[in-house]
């Protein structure tokens, strides 16, 4: 049923469609970033599409690719009972030019998701009414879910107590170990991994 969505999308925005695939009933279309808003507007307002429900939006960092970031949008039509996953790619290797037009004017629910994508990935949404950080605090520098953000770098809001102040060692006490956390998450992504 929903293959029709991809077909209609192909017919209407054939030049803006980079690739499509559908698997297990999930249809995905990757579109050019500069047509993002037009395509979203059409999906929302066209009577045959009628994607009236915004489901999810997130950013993905592929540090080896260019453009580097993918923004993924999930839509559902309550009326037509079909779904689509729309992706687009923005930003260069340094994360510059990671900008996309906001779709909050079609789906009010996109507001906080765009803020989250901005907060975690640093994808800027042009035309967003209030693009502030949503999870991290305003003093936070950088975007923590980018692969080049150091995994263990914290940015405390208040200075930690020093050991002189406390009068005792502040390392992890037994039975807690230094590697109490996720050791696998502590790897830092590097552009050219050393041959091993």
């Amino acid at each position: 049923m929903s293959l029709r969505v991809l077909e209609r999308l192909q017919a209407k925005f054939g030049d803006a469609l980079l690739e499509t695939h559908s698997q297990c009933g999930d249809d995905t279309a990757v579109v050019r970033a500069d047509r993002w808003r037009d395509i979203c507007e059409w999906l929302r307002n066209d009577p045959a599409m009628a994607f009236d429900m915004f489901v999810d939006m997130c950013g993905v960092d592929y540090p080896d690719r260019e453009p580097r970031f993918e923004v993924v949008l999930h839509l559902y039509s309550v009326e037509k009972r079909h779904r689509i996953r729309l992706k687009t790619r923005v930003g260069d290797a340094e994360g510059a030019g990671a900008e996309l037009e906001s779709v909050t004017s079609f789906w009010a629910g996109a507001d906080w998701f765009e803020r989250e994508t901005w907060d975690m990935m640093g994808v800027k949404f042009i035309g967003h009414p209030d693009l502030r950080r949503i999870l991290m605090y305003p003093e936070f520098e950088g975007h923590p879910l980018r692969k080049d953000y150091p995994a263990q770098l914290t940015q405390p809001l208040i200075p930690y107590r020093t050991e002189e102040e406390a009068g005792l060692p502040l390392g992890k006490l037994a039975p807690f170990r230094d590697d109490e956390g996720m050791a696998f998450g502590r790897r830092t992504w590097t552009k050219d991994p050393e041959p091993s």
Partner: protein
Amino acid sequence: MGELTSPAGDNRIIALEGSESGFATTKLDALLGWARKYSLFMYPFVTACCGMEFMALSSSRFDISRFGAEAPRFSPRQSDLLWVVGTISQRQAPVLRRIYEQMMEPKYVLAFGTCASCGGFYDNYTTVPGIDKIIPTDVYVPGCPPRPEAVLDGLMLLQDKIARGDRTPGIVKPRQDPAEALVSIRKRDKSSDTHEGGSR
């Protein structure tokens, strides 16, 4: 009040220790410690899933009231014991510090669960790696979440420390090492296997 008639009915007067005729001596510190350890007013700073275990602890099955520590005060100015229950994110750290600073002396802090004690597996940009990085902590209770028995152990450890006037941090030791139990089960299985093999 210090006098009782003998149950034998021979009108002898029995003097009780601690009454006008007898007396008890104690050090003021010990007396204050004894008074404090059974009148802990708690301020629950509950931020995460450990809160569920905290509810179990406060309800009738485990009944923290037995230890004189059940009265919650939702104003830090009226409480003695700060329960930090759950993950403290970097964003919450200033709030926790402020709550601690508002409490009256003498004040005690109990880190409930691994996250509050050392950050747990949140070893990344979001989380304070242990509340002792921002406020002094008296007792750590490991566990994810800790069992109510472990928390009661922690509370009793804290009461012991209060009575002794000891402010060095303490950690609740596990009552039983699950890994050790596993080893003994394996040993038992192994021995029963060889036994069966022999009988065949």
